[in-house]
């Protein structure tokens, strides 16, 4: 399946914000975020949606790369954690404004429950991945990171989910992911439900084994693998 060629350059471009090799809308959005102009950032993306821009592309080519860029800027000490939180909160607001578009796509009959490892407050990524599944026609049920394992397992059973999606952000979340998977495997109702995991701790060489059926490195890979999994059912 392979990872799609990202529309952004991995190296910073010249000229500061806006020159990072992002698509123009993403560069503008990033510049608005870094300038603390929430309203402008919001109008840029929501305005594009209102004018008929492809919602999936807004997620994949604008919001996701900008969030990655924000993370990279933090890694380079160009912005502080506080700034990163601010940018993430604005993107969360943008995502909320896009939800009416996301949830009105035709259904494909598959259902999934998505959750973030307990204690993982960096949930935006997995929520956006859930939205991408929703855009592909899945019925997705996102449970917050503070949902106990038993409640997640119950939700998988009650929603008759075809897939359980779990994400982690930090190494310390890996144990919680393993715990959740063990709980799902131990329950007769959910034993056979495929489990997909993703997030930074799983993208490194020698990634920890947590008992998942599939480990994915990107949303796109997750979507493709999910299609394959469902194709065999």
């Amino acid at each position, binding site marked *: 399946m392979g990872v799609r060629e990202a529309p952004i350059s991995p190296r910073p471009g010249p000229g500061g914000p806006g020159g990072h090799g992002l698509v123009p809308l993403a560069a503008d959005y990033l510049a608005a975020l870094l300038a603390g102009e929430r309203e402008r950032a919001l109008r840029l993306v929501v305005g594009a949606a209102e004018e008929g821009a492809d919602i999936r592309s807004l997620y994949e080519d604008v919001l996701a790369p900008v969030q990655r860029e924000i993370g990279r800027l933090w890694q380079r*000490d160009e912005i502080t*954690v506080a700034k990163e939180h601010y940018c993430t909160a604005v993107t969360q607001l943008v995502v*909320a404004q896009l939800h*009416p578009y996301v*949830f009105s796509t035709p259904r494909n009959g598959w259902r999934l429950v998505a959750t973030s490892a307990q204690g993982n*407050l960096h949930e*935006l990524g997995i929520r956006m991945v859930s939205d991408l599944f929703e855009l592909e026609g899945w019925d997705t049920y996102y449970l917050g990171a503070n949902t106990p394992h038993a409640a997640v397992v119950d939700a998988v059973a009650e929603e008759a989910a075809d897939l359980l999606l779990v994400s982690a952000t*930090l*190494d310390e979340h890996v144990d919680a992911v393993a715990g959740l998977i063990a709980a799902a495997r131990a329950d007769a109702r959910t034993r056979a439900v495929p489990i997909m995991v993703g997030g930074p701790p799983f993208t*490194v060489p020698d990634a920890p084994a947590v008992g998942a059926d599939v480990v994915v490195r990107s949303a796109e890979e997750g979507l493709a693998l999910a299609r394959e999994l469902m194709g065999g059912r």
Partner: protein
Amino acid sequence: MSGATPDVDVLAVRIGPDGELREVLVDVHGRTDGARRLTDLLDTGSHEKAARLLADLAAGDSVVDRELVVAARGESPAAVLTWLGWSEDGDAMLVGATSAVEAMSAYADLLAINNEQSNLLRAAAAGRARERRRGESDAVQELMALNSELATAERKLAKQNVTLERVNEDKDQLLGTVAHDLRNPLAAVIGLSEALSAGRAGDLDDSARHVAERIAVVAGHMRQLVDDLVDLAAVESGRVRLDLEDAAVDALVRDAVEPSYFAAADKDIELVVRTPPDARVHADRGKVQQVVQNLVDNAVKYSHPGTTVTVDAREVDDDLVLTVTDEGQGIPAEELDGLFQPFSTTSVRSTGGERSTGLGLAIVRRLVEAHGGRVSVDSEVDVGSVFRVRLPLGGPARTDDPGGPGDPSGPGD
């Protein structure tokens, strides 16, 4: 050590050029137990960043304000620490703390005392400023947790909202289809029962003719109900298309009132119409006439013989204000709230046995709102009611949603 505040995070280490831990100077939380390299202390996500920091130190640069995530260890959760570092005799010194200020303070303490004493830094790190910082840190964590919960709830609600909208659309479509399919057979029932009572299908005795007349009356009411349902379904589903034109207010209002003269005359009710001679309004003529007609019909329906129903149109600022005033029974205050909702009922009864579908005022409200206008009512029991419609003379304001039902915020009446 007394006065220690183990919640304040300070780490100070001396490291070799390849990141190996040579000496632990300060470790408040026991994060270095068993660790051999700097990366052992860190979350994997911060390894790349640590490599860059080491490279900068190796180049002889001092570093400040670097944020690295230290991994969870034992009872201590992962945390973002702010680091500063400098080269020293081929090795590098690194100080990380909960904030840049704390790191600076720990750095100053390191310079002031020898390494054996460095574990005393924990006490030096305690203080009101740090406590405040910790409080802020807790608040940020709490805020993030709350934001996560809100975002999750928002997503769930947005999904449910779309499902409800779909169900509502299905309902409107079903309503429209059923109502539409009922119209033709009802027209046949009315026509045939009228033919029967007129004797065109042979002579009937009085009793049979009475039955045929009743059938026509009941079927007529049903047709009115179906017509109203079709109108309402169209308005509710946002399918109302306004055919906007510049219309003379005088002719528009008088044409709308005319069909009610007979019913008013039958009940000995006087209909008075006052209109400005030259006023014009940019509106859908037919829809505004339907508004006036529904209001006048209602006024006549609920007024006593010998009273007056007044229709008044006038320009006020940039609006056309239409009022329909009756001297009827009035509506109790507690029943006014739901008056413009579909199928609303009141305790007020018609004075001539006329029936009501309960949809007329709901249609009025939606048609007025589609024009960007507002409708309201004032009423006093045993005195009468005043229905007031306010329409922008220039027509509905342009929105991003042409063909939509107008300002969704509504009048709130």
